[in-house]
C-alpha cells in the first residue's frame, strides 16, 4: 500500500473533511470556498469554531490521517505527485488528495464520463450499459458516480466487457454510496477503482455531490449525458465539463420521458453534441473514423429475423407477438433463442426490447 501524499496536502484534505458540516452551510458557493487557502478557508466558514479549528489544524498529526487511510484500505495520491491525474489540474480547486481504492493507474488513462438520471427509463439504462461496454472495449476508461440508474448501468456495461471502470464517490472511497450498491462497489474495486477526495471516516454531506461531479468532469476527456431530468445533477457535471473546456455529448431521449427532458434541452440549446452510440464519442475524441468501436454483432439467424423485426416494430410482449401471427409455443422458443444470442433483452412485465 503506497501512502505517497505529502503532509501539506494531507493536512488540507483533513481540513476539508473536518469542515464538512460547515461547508454544508456554504453549499451554494462550494467551488469558490474550496479554492481558498487553508487559513482563509477556516476564516471564511469556521464561524464560532474558528479558534478551535486553527488550534486543531496547527497541532494536526498528519500520520494519523495516513493511518486512517491505511486502515480503510485506500491509497493516497496528492496534487504534488506526478501520478496525480493531470486532467484534474484544470479545475479551479483540484482536490488536494485523492483517496483511491483499487488500481490508481486507471486514473491516468483516457477516460469518458457517462452520467445521467437516477430514475432512468429502461431505454436509458440499456443505452448507458451498452455505451459503457462499447467504450470500454474500445480502450477508454468509463468514469461515473455509481449512483442508481444511468451511472450504475454505465459501470456495469464496462464490467460486463471484463474491463475496468472508475467510480468517483461523493463520500469516502471505501464506503459504498448509495449503500444498496455494495455489490457493484465490490466489483468495481476488484476490477477497477473507486476514488474520492474525502478522507475516510467522514460522513456524506449534500455539498459532496456537486463536488464529486467536478472530479468526474475533470477526469474525463468527454462527458456524455444519457438521460437527465430538468434539475438533474448530471447537468451540473455537464456544465462543469464545459467550464474547463471539455466536450459534452448527450444521447437523445424520448420526448415523452420526463427523465430525458434535461438532456434533450441540453442538445437543443447546443450545449452538447448528439451521441447516438459509442462511435460518435470516439469520432469526437479522436477525429472521424480514427478509431472504431468493436466489430458489430453477427446478424440474427434468418428464421428469427421476422420475429426480431416484429419486436423492433413495437410488438414487445409474447401476447403482442401472438397477435402479429407468431404461434405461442414456437414464438416463446424463438424469443428465448434471440435472448440467448443477445439480440433482445427481457425486462419487467415480460417486455422484450432490442438489445442496443
Amino acid at each position, binding site marked *: 500500500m503506497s501512502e505517497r501524499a505529502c503532509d501539506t496536502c494531507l493536512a488540507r484534505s483533513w481540513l476539508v473533511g473536518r469542515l464538512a458540516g460547515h461547508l454544508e452551510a456554504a453549499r451554494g458557493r462550494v467551488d469558490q470556498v474550496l479554492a481558498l487557502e487553508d487559513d482563509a478557508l477556516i476564516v471564511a466558514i469556521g464561524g464560532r469554531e474558528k479558534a478551535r479549528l486553527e488550534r486543531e489544524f496547527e497541532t494536526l498529526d498528519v500520520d494519523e490521517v495516513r493511518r486512517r487511510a491505511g486502515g480503510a484500505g485506500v491509497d493516497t495520491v496528492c496534487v504534488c505527485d506526478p501520478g496525480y491525474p493531470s486532467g484534474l489540474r484544470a479545475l479551479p480547486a483540484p482536490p488536494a488528495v485523492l483517496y483511491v481504492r483499487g488500481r490508481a493507474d486507471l486514473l491516468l488513462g483516457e477516460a469518458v464520463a457517462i452520467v445521467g438520471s437516477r*430514475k432512468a427509463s429502461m431505454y436509458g439504462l*440499456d443505452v448507458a450499459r451498452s455505451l459503457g461496454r462499447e467504450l470500454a472495449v474500445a480502450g477508454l476508461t468509463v468514469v461515473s458516480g455509481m449512483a442508481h440508474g444511468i451511472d450504475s448501468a454505465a459501470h*456495469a456495461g464496462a464490467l460486463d466487457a471484463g474491463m475496468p471502470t472508475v467510480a468517483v464517490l461523493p463520500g469516502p472511497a471505501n464506503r459504498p454510496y448509495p449503500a444498496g450498491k455494495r455489490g*457493484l462497489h465490490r466489483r468495481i474495486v476488484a476490477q477497477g477503482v473507486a476514488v474520492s477526495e474525502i478522507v475516510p471516516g467522514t460522513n456524506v454531506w449534500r455539498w459532496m455531490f456537486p463536488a464529486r461531479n467536478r472530479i468526474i468532469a475533470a477526469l474525463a476527456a468527454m462527458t456524455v449525458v444519457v438521460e437527465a431530468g430538468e434539475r438533474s445533477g448530471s447537468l451540473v457535471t455537464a456544465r462543469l465539463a464545459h467550464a474547463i473546456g471539455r466536450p459534452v455529448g448527450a444521447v437523445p431521449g424520448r420526448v*415523452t420521458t420526463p427523465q430525458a427532458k434535461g438532456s434533450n434541452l441540453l442538445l437543443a440549446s447546443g450545449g452538447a453534441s448528439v451521441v447516438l452510440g459509442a462511435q460518435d464519442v470516439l469520432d469526437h475524441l479522436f477525429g472521424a473514423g480514427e478509431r472504431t468501436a468493436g466489430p458489430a454483432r453477427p446478424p440474427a439467424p434468418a428464421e428469427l429475423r421476422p420475429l426480431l423485426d416484429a419486436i423492433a416494430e413495437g410488438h414487445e410482449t409474447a*401476447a403482442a407477438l401472438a397477435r402479429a401471427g407468431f404461434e405461442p*409455443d414456437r414464438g416463446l422458443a424463438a424469443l428465448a433463442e434471440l435472448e440467448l444470442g443477445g439480440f433482445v433483452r427481457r425486462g419487467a412485465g415480460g417486455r422484450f426490447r432490442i438489445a442496443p
Partner: protein
Amino acid sequence: MRTLDAMLARVATFAIDGIDPRHVWVEVDIRGGLPAFTIVGLGDAAVRESRDRVRSAISNSGFDFPQTRITANLAPAFLRKVGPGFDAALALGVLAASGQVPADALDAYAVFGELSLSGDLRDSPGALAVAEGARRAGLERLIVPRERAREAALVGGLEIAGVSSLRAAAEVLAGGALPPLPEVGAGLGGISGVAGATSEPDLADVRGHAAPLLALEIAAAGGHNLLFEGAPGTGKTMLARRIPSILPAMSRAEAIEVTRIHSIAGLHAAGLVGARPFRAPHHTISAAGLVGGGSPPRPGEATLAHHGVLFLDELAEFQRSSLDALRQPLEDGCVTIVRGQRALVFPTRFMLVGATNPCPCGFAGVGDRCNCGEADLRRHSRRLSGPLLDRMDLLINVERPTEPELRAPAQTSSARARERVARARERQRFRLTGHGARCNGEMDARAVRRHVRLEDAADSALAQAYVVGALSARGRHRVLRVAQTIADLSGHGRVTHADLLTALSLRQRGDADTTLAA
C-alpha cells in the same frame, strides 16, 4: 325417578384436534343431591354452555331432565375440547344414566352433533373426521345430524344413523330401524362441485391469452408453482381460477382427505368434494391464517388448499412473515404446529399460484407510462424475492386481450387440456415411481440430474444460457424441470431444443436480472 344409587353412563364421541379425530368418552354420573349439572374435562365456553342446551333439549323432546346432581366428564381430561359437537353425546348420556334410553345399546355407537333448545340435531362441522375416528375405534354405528349422514357414510364399514332430533336418536338406540340416508341432491347429500360440471370455470371462457394458456397447461401438467405478472385487470385471477379445472381429477382417497378438512372448516355443503380446492386469501392475511395456528390450532389456507390451488393475488403486498411461513409447507408438503407438549401436523400439498404487478405502478417497461425508478423496482423485486420465488418454476406475463381476440372463438377447453395434462402426468408417474416425486414440479436437484435427458442441441442451448448469465444454478434446475414437462406434454422421449427454449422463455426474471445493474 328418585334413587340414592349412583347411575353411570358412558357415550363415545370424538373431538376434532387440528384435523384429526380424538376419541372422547362422555361419562355421565347421576346421584342424589340438590339439582345441579356440571361438566368437567377441559371444555371451552361452547362446552360449558352445552348444559343449558342439553337441559332444554331433553325437556322439549318429551324426556325428563333428572332433578338431581349430574356430573358429566369429558375424558381424557388433558385434551382441550372445543365446540358444540358434544351436545348430543351429553344428552344421550344423561338419558342413559337416568334410564330413559337403554345404556347398553350405547356401547356400539358413537354420537356427534349440536343440539338446539327444541331438541333438533343441528348440522355440525367435522362429521367425516368423526366417522373415521369411529371406524378406527372399532365402533359399529354412528349417530350424526341428518345433513351430515352422506358425508359420514363416505367412510365404509360403519352404519350411519342420520337423525334430525334427539327424539329420533333415542328411538334408534331403543332398537328402531336406522333412517335411510338422505337422497342425493336436494341440497343434502349431493356430490358437490364435480369436475366438469357446468358451474365450474372453464378454459373455454377464456379469449386471447394464448401464451398464458400454454403456460397454464405446462404448470398443471408438471405440478409447477407459477407466478402471474401483469397489470391489474388483465385476467390473472380469471386464469388462476381455471387451473383446478385442468388438473387431473382427485383420487377417492384425496377427495376424502379434502372433504374431511373442508368439513372441519365448515366450508362445504355435504357429500364428497369433487373439484380440487381453489383458495384465494386476501393479502392482509396473517401467518397463522395462511399456514394454520391459533389456540386451539386450526388449519390455515395452505391446508384448505391441500390437493388444490393456493392463489396469492398481489403477492408483493403480503406481509413478509406470512410469505416466510409458507416455506415449510412448500418444502415438506405439510406444516407442523407445536402447542405446549403437542405437535399437530396439517397436510399442505398445494399448487402455489402468485400474481403480481410487474412494478409498483403496474406499467413496467412501457417507457413513458412507467415512472418507477430503479430503487422502486428494486424494492418491488426485493419484496417478491426469497424462498417463495425459489419455488416458482414458471413466470407468466398476462396482458389485456384485444377487442378482436375477445370476439374470437375459444381456443381450447378444460376437458381437452385436462386430457393432455393427464397423459403428461401418466408419463411422469411412469418415470418417477419410487423416486419420491409424483410430478416434475416435485423433483429435487438429484432427481433432475437422474431423470431429465436432453438432446444435444438442447444441452448446448442450456450451456449457453448459463454462460451468458441468463440463468443461475438454481434457475437451471427450474428450467430443466419445466423443459421436462414440456417434453412430456409433447410426447418427446428427450427434451428437444424447442422444449428447452420454451422453458427458458417462461423462466423467472429473478434468475438473471439483465436490466438492473449489479
